[in-house]
């Protein structure tokens, strides 16, 4: 009988499977828009696998390079099965996402989704241009992150990190303009949490496996 014990243990080891964790419920990630009369249209977006890695451009001399790099690492680490990958590119003409350290332009027009963030020391905005039929996202997406007050504010680097993570959450597909209702999430409208909460991760996982209504186009 004792001779069988190693064989049984070996067989058990050879047949084991990973056991998934219990996940917290996600927050709302979709955008609802009026679609003629009283009808509401639901917009969802995620990057098709064929577009990975997403190309992100940040100017070399901008203070946003490191925060964007941190944000990329965070979201890539959150999605375990290669659902989202991004890389920094040196040529803005090839970029899917252009990040600038300037205030967002006014007047966003009709075919554009504007998603704002208002952290204590800095402001962020993501512009996602769509076609008139609301079926396509026209690349590149544009991310703006800029200081609210003095660029010399010592808390600005941390604010940039929070806001870069927040805006990249929009780029990833969390496009609900009302954001997360919980201050403990980086996708809260005025984010203060410097990281990804379990709800942020859970929401990103859901977003990354939907059948989206918006698909990207115009990649150069």
């Amino acid at each position, binding site marked *: 009988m004792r001779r069988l014990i190693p064989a049984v243990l*070996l067989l058990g*080891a*050879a*047949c*084991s*499977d*990973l*056991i*998934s*964790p*219990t996940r917290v419920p996600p927050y709302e990630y979709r955008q609802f828009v009026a679609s003629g009369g009283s009808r509401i249209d639901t917009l969802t977006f995620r990057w*098709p*696998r*064929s577009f*990975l890695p997403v190309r992100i451009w940040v100017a070399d001399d901008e203070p946003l390079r490191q925060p964007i790099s941190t944000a990329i*690492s965070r979201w*890539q*680490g959150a*999605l*375990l*099965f*290669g*659902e989202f*990958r991004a890389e920094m590119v040196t040529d803005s003409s090839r970029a899917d996402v252009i990040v600038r350290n300037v205030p967002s332009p006014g007047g966003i027009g009709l075919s554009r989704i504007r998603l704002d963030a208002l952290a204590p020391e800095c402001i962020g905005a993501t512009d996602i241009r769509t076609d008139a039929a609301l079926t396509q996202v026209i690349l590149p997406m544009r991310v703006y992150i800029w200081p609210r007050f003095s660029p010399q504010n010592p808390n600005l680097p941390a604010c940039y990190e929070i806001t870069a993570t927040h805006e990249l959450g929009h780029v990833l597909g969390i496009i609900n303009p009302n954001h997360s209702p919980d201050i403990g999430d980086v996708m809260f409208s005025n984010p203060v949490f410097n990281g990804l909460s379990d709800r942020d*991760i859970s929401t990103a*996982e*859901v977003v*990354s*496996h*939907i059948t989206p209504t918006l698909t990207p186009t115009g990649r150069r």
Partner: protein
Amino acid sequence: MQFPSLLVIGALVVAPIGAQTTARLTVGGTLGTALASDQLGGPVSLGTGVPVTAALSVAHPIGAGYRALAEVRGGRGALRADNNGESSTIPGLTTVGLMLLVDGPLAHRVRWELGAGFLSYRPAELSGAFSKGGPTPWLLGAGLNWSRPLSESFDLVANGRYDFHQFRSRQLDSRGYTQYQSVHRIGLGVGIERSF
């Protein structure tokens, strides 16, 4: 530990090299089952595809037709992510396996081999399940080796290998995954064996 270091250790294990000691180099491919899988709106999984594999081993007789082998087996390929029927690859996954084996005669020109060791996953890109690096699980393996003399000191060899290990990366661990994923692999290689 770098690849050359493993080669040196492998060589030292069977020292002193003397008469009847052989060295074998094979090149081929390895097919493996998923490293991780889950249900996220449908089935998702992460695998290694079919990486190109090279194996270098040194064997020394230990009596009655049996030999002890030290082997370094390296694979270079890509991670393959399958998400609800949509696939993508994450380039640059290297595996380095170090095994100690025993082999013996089975039939004419065919020998069996059995051993254990470790397998190190070395991703080029720290993302997804490999965000915190790759694990180094233990490895059990068995195989068959066929050889045919080409000259006095060189043989043509073909090697078939089955091995299994348990996989869970630190990132999977930190995200609350428990237990381990059993990964079964089959490798085929052809090469040469030289007698010293």
